[in-house]
């Protein structure tokens, strides 16, 4: 982390960039938050550890409009989102300096909570260079957990350790993938329709429409969103009618179909823990099966499958009932 801070300070000092987007310490040791850094002394609060899961590429939409260059710290999977934003002409590449930061999987504090770790005072072993278990110092004493057991679900289906777009890379990355990406989707597909419906109904009825999934999603970058209404302030985010309320997640998944890089931010930020990535992954799986393998954000020139066609595409009637 020190190497990264030194390099960022250097970039600020020599005027290559005028601001940096990174993470600063949160009020708890496990919730760092995205932040702007403009002066050398701001870096006292800079942090980059295992809990820095936030994908900062979306912040570049606004930051790249500002005067001067902005440096942004992107993990390997975040660079896919950034590429996709370039593809959609949403960010200005000239105004961006991409620092590829190393990653050995990001952590999910909910996993620790589920394992019964409470009253956390401090955490060690989450450093980006380290290797080994995570130790929690809690009010009930010291608790240990293996790094991979604490990892976010999305890190178990890692997209690889290579940054697809960067100006420079600082630190080593590791491919943490140890699960099949479509395992969960296939599991649901194998259920009976009644079970599937019951599963989604129970998951989706937890939704409180906080819009966190939409706000964090790098593919949801429309200036005017279909889910906004004509009222002002926070009322603008209230649902317009019951239709939106019910179909929000299907519609949102469809809007990002073919553009979703499967960064997993939606599931990470959901306060209710709804596995929203299951929708996006289903679309990715279908697109792969129907129209050939496609990874959004891998190639900024590639045509999105939904804005493309071939003369002998699959008929919709053949798309359903494949499992029967």
């Amino acid at each position: 982390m020190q190497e990264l801070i030194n390099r960022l300070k250097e970039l600020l000092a020599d005027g290559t960039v005028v601001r940096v987007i990174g993470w600063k310490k949160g009020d708890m040791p496990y919730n760092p938050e995205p932040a702007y850094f403009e002066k050398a002394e701001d870096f006292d609060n800079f942090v980059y550890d295992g809990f820095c899961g936030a994908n900062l590429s979306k912040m570049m939409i606004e930051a790249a409009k500002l005067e001067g260059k902005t440096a942004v710290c992107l993990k390997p999977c975040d660079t896919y989102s950034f590429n996709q934003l370039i593809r959609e002409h949403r960010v200005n590449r000239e105004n961006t300096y991409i620092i590829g930061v190393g990653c050995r999987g990001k952590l999910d504090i909910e996993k620790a909570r589920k394992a019964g770790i409470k009253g956390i005072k401090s955490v060690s072993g989450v450093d980006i260079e380290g290797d080994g278990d995570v130790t929690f110092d809690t009010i009930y004493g010291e608790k240990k957990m293996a790094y991979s057991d604490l990892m976010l679900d999305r890190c178990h289906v890692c997209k690889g350790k290579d940054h697809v777009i960067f100006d420079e890379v600082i630190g080593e990355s590791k491919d943490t993938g140890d699960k099949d990406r479509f395992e969960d989707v296939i599991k649901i597909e194998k259920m009976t329709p009644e079970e599937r419906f019951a599963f989604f109904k129970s998951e989706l009825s937890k939704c409180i429409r906080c819009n966190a999934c939409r706000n964090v999603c790098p593919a949801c970058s429309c200036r005017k969103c279909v889910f906004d209404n004509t009222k002002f302030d926070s009322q603008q985010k209230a649902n317009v009618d019951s239709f939106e309320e019910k179909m929000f997640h299907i519609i949102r998944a469809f809007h990002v179909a073919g553009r979703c890089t499967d960064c997993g931010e939606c599931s990470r930020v959901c306060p209710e823990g709804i596995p929203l990535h299951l929708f996006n992954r289903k679309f990715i799986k279908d697109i792969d099966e129907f129209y050939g393998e496609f990874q959004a954000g891998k190639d900024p020139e590639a045509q999105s499958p939904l804005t493309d066609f071939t003369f002998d595409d699959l008929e919709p009637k053949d798309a359903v009932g494949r499992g029967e």
Partner: protein
Amino acid sequence: MPMNEENKEFRPLIVAFCCNWCSYAGADLAGSSRLSYPADVKIIRVPCSGRVNPMFILRAFERGADGVIICGCHPGDCHYSTGNYYARRRMALLFSMLEYMGIENGRTRVEWCSAAEGAKFSKTMNEFCEKVKSLGQNVRLGDLRCKN
């Protein structure tokens, strides 16, 4: 007063999105050829099957439709050259997603039907209506988040 036996029978509400250039004219032809199709089918004219936003389909279901059918020109015959090719991809993905969520897959259908195919139009609608009737009322999509 006891309800008439006839009125007890379930009549599905079916929304048909018909392309102005082919299926809508096909429906016209079915009418002028005196080929019958069920009155449960409510036709909405769209300029092209590519105009059908997946949201239209979801909204129709949410508002109480029991089945939705999209009729467009045969691939290659689109009035705007390529509209139905895009529609084909979209609908394939949407229907697959609805099936994934546990919605009965007989409730949605895409049929390519030209202006000369009045007989096919009437046959398709009869078939689809029977299918939806056998599935019964659409409960699942109307109540996805247990709000009602």
